[in-house]
């Protein structure tokens, strides 16, 4: 963010506790010292106004990065994002656009309970006019965030809470960007494609290594952007392997898995050698607080490996 704020004076950060505290996860720590309180703005605890102010600023030539402290609390802002921001370019025949980024930590596995653990992505992926980005590695997060900030349209940028501390990876200093809408094959394989995003990527990679020891070669596709989906990358992989498993933490019904499965069966049916399978969170209203129940909610390496074996054996 600081590189982008250096590069473009229209970029500014706003949200609850982003300035004085540097954000609850310290994502904006140090920005105030560098750029001052005018470009790193603490807001009241009111998500609707955060999104609304950011939308207004974007319409007036600024490039706001608005933080919603937890995705669980994003709902008051939905009218501004879905009802307004997503429609501006379409509604003005392209004469106006909303270069807005909404950053928000999402997902569970951090003992966050019902109000700090949820996966909210599909409420936005259903909305034409929004882009939804879900990086899983530090390298991807930087490259994609830069692209999101430079994008002339609204981007919902979801950062998995668990990956803040769990995942470490090399991040080059300085300039690079990664394209929004491009998936990334994180592990090459021949026997099946596993399509995933977010925290689950890391569990899938672990499970894939286990399966490799058992002689099953798994290809792991990290979607990185879940709207628009990288259909070509998904199809290229599934056409190669003939089998497809989708893994996500979000609940199954109506999730990204269903969309990927539909794309595969529409366009790669002739290449399929087994049912398209999904492993996802259970149909429960929210991630529970109790540690054993939370563990039951989240697909883990063992369950993913089990699903992989089942599909491999088919």
């Amino acid at each position, binding site marked *: 963010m600081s590189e982008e704020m250096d590069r473009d004076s229209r970029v500014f950060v706003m949200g609850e506790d982003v300035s004085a505290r540097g954000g609850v996860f310290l994502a904006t720590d140090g920005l105030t010292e560098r750029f001052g309180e005018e470009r790193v703005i603490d807001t009241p605890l009111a998500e609707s106004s955060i999104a609304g102010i950011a939308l207004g600023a974007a319409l007036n030539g600024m490039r706001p990065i608005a933080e919603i402290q937890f995705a669980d609390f994003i709902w008051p802002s939905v009218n501004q994002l879905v009802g307004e921001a997503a429609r501006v370019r379409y509604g003005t025949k392209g004469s106006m656009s909303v270069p807005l980024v909404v950053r928000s930590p999402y997902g569970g596995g951090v003992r966050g309970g019902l109000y700090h653990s949820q996966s909210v992505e599909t409420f936005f992926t259903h909305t034409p006019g929004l882009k939804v980005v879900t990086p899983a590695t530090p390298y991807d997060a930087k490259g994609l965030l830069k692209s999101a900030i430079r994008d002339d349209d609204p981007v919902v940028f979801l950062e998995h809470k668990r990956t803040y501390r769990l995942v470490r990876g090399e991040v080059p200093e300085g300039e690079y960007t990664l394209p929004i809408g491009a998936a990334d094959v994180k592990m090459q394989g021949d026997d099946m494609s596993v399509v995933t995003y977010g925290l689950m990527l890391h569990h899938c990679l672990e499970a894939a290594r286990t399966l490799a020891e058992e002689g099953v070669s798994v290809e792991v596709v990290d979607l990185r952007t879940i709207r628009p989906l990288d259909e070509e990358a998904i199809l290229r992989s599934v056409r190669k392997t*003939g089998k497809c498993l989708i893994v996500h933490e979000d609940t199954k019904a109506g999730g990204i898995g269903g969309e990927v499965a539909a794309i595969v069966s529409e366009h790669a*049916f*002739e290449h*399929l*050698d*087994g*049912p*398209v399978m999904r492993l996802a969170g259970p149909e429960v209203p929210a991630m529970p607080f109790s540690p054993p129940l939370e563990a039951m909610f989240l697909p883990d390496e063992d369950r993913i490996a089990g699903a992989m074996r089942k599909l491999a*054996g*088919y």
Partner: protein
Amino acid sequence: MRILLPQVGESVAEAIIDKWLKKVGDLVEKYEPLAEVVTDKVNMEMPSPVSGVLTSILVEEGQTVQMGTVVAEIKVEGEEEAPGGEASPPVSAGDRAPDVIDRIGTLLKDVAPVGPTGSGGPAVDDGDGAPRSKPRYSPVVQHLAAEHDVDLSMVAGSGIGGRVTRKDVQAYVDAGAEAAQGRVSEAATAGTAQARAPAEGDERVPLRPVRRMIAENMVRSATEIPEAWTMVEADVTGLVRLREAAKADFQRREGVNLTYLPFVVQVVADSLKEHRLVNSTWAGDAIILKHRINIGVAIATPNGLVVPVVHDAGSLSVARLAKAVHDLATRARRGKLDVTDVQGGTFTVNNTGPLGSVVGKALINHPQAAILNTEAIVKRPVVINDAIAIRSIMNLCITFDHRILDGMEAGAFVTDVKRRLEAIRPDMEV
């Protein structure tokens, strides 16, 4: 009610209707045998699942049909006549029952839900023993099969429940196996034109299904497996004396005759534990080392050769093995073997001794890795410590799949068998 040829074992894909025991119009009781059926593993009677009147026979005697095919129809008392009341036309060999096509199609009631998204597992085997109506192939498998002109019924499946996977088809095509496999059934029944035309006085004996199955299996073994052969002599004087000393008591105590075969089976099982490569299967791109040691014993019966299996032979005593072999041989000769009796073999012992043979080369029981002939025990003068002694000698001949084994491993195995047989002393407990 349509009568389906029941699935009798996971690896049995098709069967021959050998003989109908009922004719159209006959009253049939539930569980009463309808037909004699022959598979590559076993002969069996097909019981009627219901009581009623046999209204039509859809498969002629001698035809080969897939498991799950509709083979007959029985009218159950009180059952509505089928629309139009017409009997379905007979299906020819290999055909499946035609699906009923209505005005706008029919709901497939027997299709299990697929994948973890449904309420059950993959629609391969729902485990309740109900016959699958027909094998289903995935889109890519059908696509590949069409592209390479592969008859999918000839491809061995490695997926759940024997499902043919894309890899199976690919391996089949890559190995050029279509030529080899495709030749099997033709070659088995081919013969040259000259051989086909009987001269005056010759007698033409039509093939019984069992003969045809044996022929196909032998052609498959001979065409697919590059085999090699070796032989060692074993001095089994100790074994002969032990058997002489123990057999009367054994017969009294155990109720079965004490032959050499259980000793051989035990020694072979023990040796297989240390030579796992001999207890394996060629899998195209890998060798599958079998965990269990299940020894098939070749038995000649009035109907032809069968190979029932002593399962987990490595954990059985000589007495238990003697009883197991006796039981299998008795039931084999009476044609009363179950499918389970002939499944799962990982190695075969071919006891040719009783035929008087002293050297022989067996064909491998496909898809096993090797087969061991135990030849007749004969007394011969042999040199021991530069003196000539009269000893009981048995030749051990092994035919092995040279893709899996080289002469060194096969030789080490058969030498191990020899060593163990020679170590048997007359004073051992049986």
